């Protein structure tokens, strides 16, 4: 069973919502801009949703490298301690 609060599920759902796709259409390793034709505002929208959900600020200078579900998860894991975001695959 998949837990909706699992970070990968949560990030994938936010990304899918922003890009008008279904969550199962998202490949966790694909670049939002190169693969899904996201625009720069989509990235702002995704980051704002994640920041709100996890109550954390994602540093601007790290966002250029965080353009896939897995890259964003990695960034969140580094910023938050393990009690708030389990670092495990689905």
């Amino acid at each position: 069973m998949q837990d909706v609060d699992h970070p990968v599920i949560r990030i994938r759902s936010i990304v899918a919502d922003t890009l008008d796709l279904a969550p199962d259409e998202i490949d966790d390793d694909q670049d939002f801009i190169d693969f899904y034709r996201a625009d720069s505002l989509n990235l702002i929208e995704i980051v704002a949703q994640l920041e709100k959900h996890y109550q954390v600020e994602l540093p601007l200078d790290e966002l250029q490298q965080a353009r896939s579900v897995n890259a964003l998860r990695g960034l969140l894991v580094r910023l938050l301690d393990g009690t708030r975001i389990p670092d495990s695959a689905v």
Partner: protein
Amino acid sequence: MLDHAQVRGLLRQRPPMILLDTVGEFSPTSLVATKAISGSEGCYRDLADGTPLAGFAYPQALLVESFGQACSLLWTLAGLGPPDRIPLLVGVSDLAFHSSPFPGDVLEHQVRLVHSSSTACEFTGRSHVNGDTVLDVGSLLVASLPGPSPT
């Protein structure tokens, strides 16, 4: 409380795009601002003689801009971005327009900060005239970047 001189000192817009008059109460996360609508405004200049009242409904674009300026004042007062940057409106969603405001009405915008970071700030709120809601704003997103992508 900020009078019109103080509001003008804080807004980056200049006439004829100054669409706020005063600020009532404010905190780091909320603000109440007013704007009086007058028949002498530029948006009514070209209406023909005999135009019925419905034609004098305050343009919705200006209503939203006025609300947006209340958000940008909160952005400035709360120090949500560097003073040398302009807060740019990059997204709105779930706006509902109710009864129309007309010349003689005083808009009261109630703005609340939902989220702020160096990437973006999100606001929500509503606008009233005499206690009647004229505008509900679900979400207004402002980028404190130098624009989403200037090129």
